[in-house]
């Protein structure tokens, strides 16, 4: 049976593959889909930190201006929840967790809404989880908007240091 969750791209960095400063997914958005589903697993680095992200414009440039707003709720097994948010900043932050230990890697599911429409803002909705080796588990509920009407063709995922491993898969929802 034909289905409507269509695979677009996978990027894998394993422990033997060196490291990457950030995950760059260029030319994954197109006129074919309004909504995209991105999964990230085994998000690992040498520093515990948050996943943060920027979008890529139609000229393949990472958008670094103060054009992003986001709201994230960080839930912790070891403390009170934290509200990470901004109405105008240079990235989407507090999206999920980058773990530094062998067993601490993070995961995330992220929807991107309407990125390729040059007459619309681009929106994101996601959840993340990870383990902070010295403290406990952390979960994230994330929403974001890029507040410029322009065509978006890709996305980057960043942390505080090089990624040591990750698996990213991108799907279009037809």
């Amino acid at each position, binding site marked *: 049976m034909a*289905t409507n969750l269509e695979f677009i791209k996978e990027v894998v960095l394993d422990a033997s593959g060196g490291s990457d400063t950030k995950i760059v997914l260029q030319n994954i958005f197109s006129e074919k889909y309004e909504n995209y589903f991105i999964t990230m697993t085994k998000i690992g680095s040498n520093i515990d930190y948050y996943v943060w992200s920027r979008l890529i414009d139609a000229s393949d440039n990472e958008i670094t201006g103060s054009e992003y*707003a986001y*709201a994230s709720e960080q839930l912790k097994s070891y403390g009170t929840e934290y509200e990470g948010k901004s109405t105008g900043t240079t990235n989407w932050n507090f999206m999920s967790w980058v773990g530094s230990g062998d067993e601490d890697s993070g995961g995330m599911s992220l929807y991107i809404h*309407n990125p390729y429409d040059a007459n619309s803002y681009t929106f994101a909705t996601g959840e993340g989880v990870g383990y902070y080796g010295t403290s406990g588990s952390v979960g994230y*509920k994330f929403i974001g908007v890029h507040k410029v*009407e322009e065509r978006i063709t890709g996305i980057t995922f960043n942390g505080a240091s090089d990624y040591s491993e990750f698996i990213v898969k991108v*799907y279009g929802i037809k």
Partner: protein
Amino acid sequence: MAGSLVLLDEKILSSTTATVDLGASNWDSSYDVYQVLVTNQRFDAGNNVFNYRFLASGSPNETANYDSAYRLLRADATYGRVGSVDQTHLRGSVAGTGTGERGNYILYLYNFNNSSEYSSVVQKGADFDPNTNSVISRTGGGVLTVDEAHNGLRFFGSNDANFQVGTSFKLYGLKK
């Protein structure tokens, strides 16, 4: 996960419309869980609420039996919590005609085909509020506390607002 969504019904508006039904005659009861995507949602007038009801045999259940609880995520202020009982519908965020003001919703529908138990929905999504320059979301869920089978949703705005051209509604079944 790949290939697990099956499109059952879609409405992409080519003219302004007060109500939109998903499912009904296009409902397929062979799924346990359904996913709804609402994208690019706008109204033709400001400060209206995105609302919806469950369809029973193709007609909306309008009784005061909807209970809900939401976390109010927003970029400009402390997050809120709100719970309601015995409402006549479930709801999303306020939307209107401002620049960038477009709602996006992801709904998961549970237990819709069971006539002897309640049906429920999980809701998440993101909208832009130009008044606060903020991204906002009502994240949570709701239950219709009636033992009844359901076969879709009816979407409508408060104050008889119309959905704008380009608003997209899609219903998927989650394949085993």
